[in-house]
C-alpha cells in the first residue's frame, strides 16, 4: 500500500508540472497586446509597480527565462501582486477564495455521491419494481437539464418566490459588521467540526467490528452516532457565534442542493449498472446460501463490490470541479476560485489567473490522488498487484 501511494504521488507531481507549464503557455498566448503593453495600459497600476514587475519578473526577457523565473517564484511561495487589484498580493486572494470553493464543492460532491449511490443501489436491487421508473426518469431529466437555466429557476423558486434561502452570495455583509471573526475563519471552524464528527463516528464504527459480542458492537455503534451528533449540536447551539455559522449555512443550502440534484443521477446510473453486474456474481449466491438477510447481501456483498467503478467516477468528478466551479459560482454569486479565475482572465490579470489555474489544478490533482488512495483501500487486489 505504501508503495502504491508513493507511486501515485510521484505521478501526481509530474502531472502537475505539465499542467503548470501548459497553463503558463496558454496565458502567454492570450490574444491581444504583449504583457508589457498590458501593464502600461492598465490604469490601476502605478508606474513603480510596472518597473518592479518588469525587473523582478523578468518580463522584458525571452519567454523561456520568464518561465524559469516564474517557476522559481511559484515554488518558493512568491505569487506576486495582482494587476487588477493592486497592491493586493495574489497569495492573500487565493487564501481567501480557496477554502470557500473547497467547502462548497466537497459538501456538494459528498451529497451527490451519498444520494447517487443509495439511489443506484435501490434501483438495481428493486429492478422491475415500482419506483424504478420514476427515479430513473427524474434522475436522468435532472442530469440532462441545461444546468445554468435550472440553477436560475431554483433561485427564482426558492429564493425569490418562497424566500426560504438567500438568492446568492456567501454571507450577508450587514450581519458580519461587528463579527468577532472573519467569515473564512468561521467557515473553517464549521468545516473542521463536521470533519471531526465524521471521523469520530467513522473510526468508532470501524473499530467496533473488533468487539466480541454483536450486542456490544451495536451499542458502541449507536453510542458513536449519538455522541458524535450530540456533541456537534451541543457545540454549535451553545456557541456565541451561532448566528454567523447559520448565515454561511443558509447560503450553502441552495448551491449544494442544486449541485446534488443535477449531479446525483450520474452516480446513480453508474452504481446501478455496476450493482446489476455484481448481483450476477457467484459470491452473491454464496452470501444468500449462507443465510444472510437480503439487506446484508445487498450492503456487504453486492454494493460493497459495486463501489469500485463508482470510486473511479469520483476521480473524474473531482476534476470537473474546475469548470463546474466557474458556472456554479457565477450563478450563485459564490466568491470562490471559479469567480476569481473568470474575473482575472477577463481582466487579463495574469498573476492571479496563473495562480488560480495552478491552485485549481492542485485541487483537482489532490482529489485524484485521494480517490486513487481510496480505490486502493477499497480493492485489495490493487494493493497487491501494485506492490508486486
Amino acid at each position, binding site marked *: 500500500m505504501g508503495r502504491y501511494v508513493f507511486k501515485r504521488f510521484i505521478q501526481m507531481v509530474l502531472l502537475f508540472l505539465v499542467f503548470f507549464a501548459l497553463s503558463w503557455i496558454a496565458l502567454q498566448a492570450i490574444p491581444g497586446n504583449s504583457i508589457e503593453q498590458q501593464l502600461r495600459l492598465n490604469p490601476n497600476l502605478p508606474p513603480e509597480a510596472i518597473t518592479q514587475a518588469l525587473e523582478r519578473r523578468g518580463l522584458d526577457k525571452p519567454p523561456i527565462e520568464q518561465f524559469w523565473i516564474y517557476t522559481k517564484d511559484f515554488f518558493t511561495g512568491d505569487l506576486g501582486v495582482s494587476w487588477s487589484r493592486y497592491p493586493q498580493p495574489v497569495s492573500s486572494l487565493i487564501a481567501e477564495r480557496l477554502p470557500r470553493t473547497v467547502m462548497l464543492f466537497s459538501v456538494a460532491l459528498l451529497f451527490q455521491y451519498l444520494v447517487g449511490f443509495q439511489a443506484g443501489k435501490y434501483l438495481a436491487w428493486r429492478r422491475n419494481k415500482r419506483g424504478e421508473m420514476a427515479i430513473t426518469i427524474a434522475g436522468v431529466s435532472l442530469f440532462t437539464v441545461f444546468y445554468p437555466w435550472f440553477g436560475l429557476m431554483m433561485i427564482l423558486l426558492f429564493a425569490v418566490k418562497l424566500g426560504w434561502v438567500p438568492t446568492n452570495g456567501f454571507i450577508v455583509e450587514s450581519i458580519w459588521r461587528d463579527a468577532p471573526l472573519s467569515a473564512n475563519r468561521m467557515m473553517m471552524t464549521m468545516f473542521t467540526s463536521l470533519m471531526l464528527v465524521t471521523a469520530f463516528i467513522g473510526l468508532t464504527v470501524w473499530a467496533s467490528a473488533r468487539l466480541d459480542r454483536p450486542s456490544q458492537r451495536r451499542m458502541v455503534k449507536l453510542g458513536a452516532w449519538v455522541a458524535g451528533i450530540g456533541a456537534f449540536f451541543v457545540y454549535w447551539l451553545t456557541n456565541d457565534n451561532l448566528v454567523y455559522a447559520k448565515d454561511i449555512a443558509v447560503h450553502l443550502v441552495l448551491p449544494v442542493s442544486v449541485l446534488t440534484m443535477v449531479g446525483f443521477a450520474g452516480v446513480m446510473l453508474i452504481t446501478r449498472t455496476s450493482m446489476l453486474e455484481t448481483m450476477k456474481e457467484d459470491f452473491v449466491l454464496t*452470501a444468500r446460501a449462507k*443465510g444472510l438477510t437480503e439487506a446484508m447481501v445487498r450492503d456487504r456483498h453486492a454494493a460493497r463490490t459495486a463501489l469500485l467503478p463508482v470510486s473511479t467516477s469520483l476521480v473524474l468528478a473531482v476534476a470537473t470541479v474546475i469548470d463546474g466551479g466557474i458556472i456554479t459560482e457565477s450563478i450563485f454569486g459564490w466568491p470562490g476560485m471559479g469567480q476569481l479565475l473568470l474575473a482575472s482572465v477577463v481582466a487579463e490579470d495574469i498573476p492571479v489567473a496563473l495562480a488560480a489555474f495552478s491552485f485549481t489544478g492542485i485541487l483537482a490533482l489532490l482529489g485524484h490522488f485521494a480517490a486513487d488512495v481510496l480505490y486502493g483501500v477499497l480493492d485489495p*487486489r490493487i494493493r497487491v498487484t501494485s506492490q508486486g
Partner: protein
Amino acid sequence: MTDTRELSNDAPILDVRNLVMHYRTEKGDVSAIEDVSFSLKAGESFGLVGESGCGKTSVAMALLQLQAENAGFEGGEILLNGKDLLLMGPSEMRSHRWNDISMVFQGAMNAWNPVHKVGAQIKEAMDLHVKPQLSHSESRERIGQLFEMVGLDPKMMDRYPHEFSGGMRQRAVIAMALSCDPQIIIADEPTTALDVIVQDQILSELKKIQRDLGMSILYISHDIAVIAEVTDRMGVMYAGKMVETGPTIDIFHNPKHPYAFLLLSSTPSITGPRRKLAPLEGEPPNLLDPPDGCRFHPRCPFVTDQCRTEEPPLADIGAGHKVACWNWESVPPLSEGLRK
C-alpha cells in the same frame, strides 16, 4: 463406509418427494425438474449425475430455496427433518441455510467476494447461525481449526481470496461449508476445474471429513467416476427426470437404464474390466418441448414404439435399484458393450 450403512435405517433427514419445478420463460415453461424423488439419511452420501442441463443444479438450488426468480414449483415437497422447505417463509428458510444445509460451490466459481478477507466471509455465516454466539477470538479459533481440518494454514484466514490458489480456494470453501456444523452439505461439482491431483486430494478430504463428523453429503457432478468414488447411493438424471437410482456399486457395475449404460460406456475404467469406449451421441432435449414418452428415446439404442408414446415409471427391480425404462432387461452387461 460400512459404519454409515448402519445409520441408514433411521428416517431420512432430507426427503425430496415428487418435486416438479418449471422455469417460466417468454417461450413457455421449461420443465427443469420433473417428478424427482430421493432421500438422504444421516451420514449417508448420495450422488446426482447427468449431463449439463439435466437439472442437477436446479435440484441443488431448490434445496437451498435459491432458485432463479422465474422458477415455480408445480408440486412435490422437500422435507428437511420432516418440515417442508417449500412452505417456509423467507426468514425461516434463512435460518436453515448453512445452519442445516450448506454448500460447497464449484471451484471454478467466484464463490468468494474479492473485497473481503476469507476469514471474515466465514465468520459472517457463523455470526448468524452458531448459537450461542462466539466471541471474536472464539470464532477465529474455530476458523483456524476448520482450516487445519481441510489442510490450510490458519494464518490464511486473514488473506484475500485472490491470494489463494484454486485448490486452496476450494479447501477454504469446504471449511466455510463446515463452519456451522450442518447436517447436510451439497457439493456441486466440488472438483471440476481443478487438476486431477488436487481433485483427488479434495475428494479424499471430503470423505475423511464426512467420516469424522458424520454429516450427509449430496454430491452433484457430471463426472460419473467422481460420484462412484465417493457416494453410497446415486441417482442418474436425464432431462429433468430421475431415470435410475440405487446403490452406487450396483449402478456402477450393472447400469440398467440405457442412459446410465451409455454414460458409463463412455467413461474409461482403470480398475474394471477392459471394454470398448462408446461415445454418447446427441444432446439432451430442449426442455421447452420435451419429447413424448420417454425423454431419452430419441438418443436410445434400445428404443421401441412404446417408448415413443408412453412414459416409463421409475420401477423397483430389486435391492433398492430403480429404473425408469420399458426395456431395461434388454440392456446388456457393461463388459459386453454395445454391439453396432
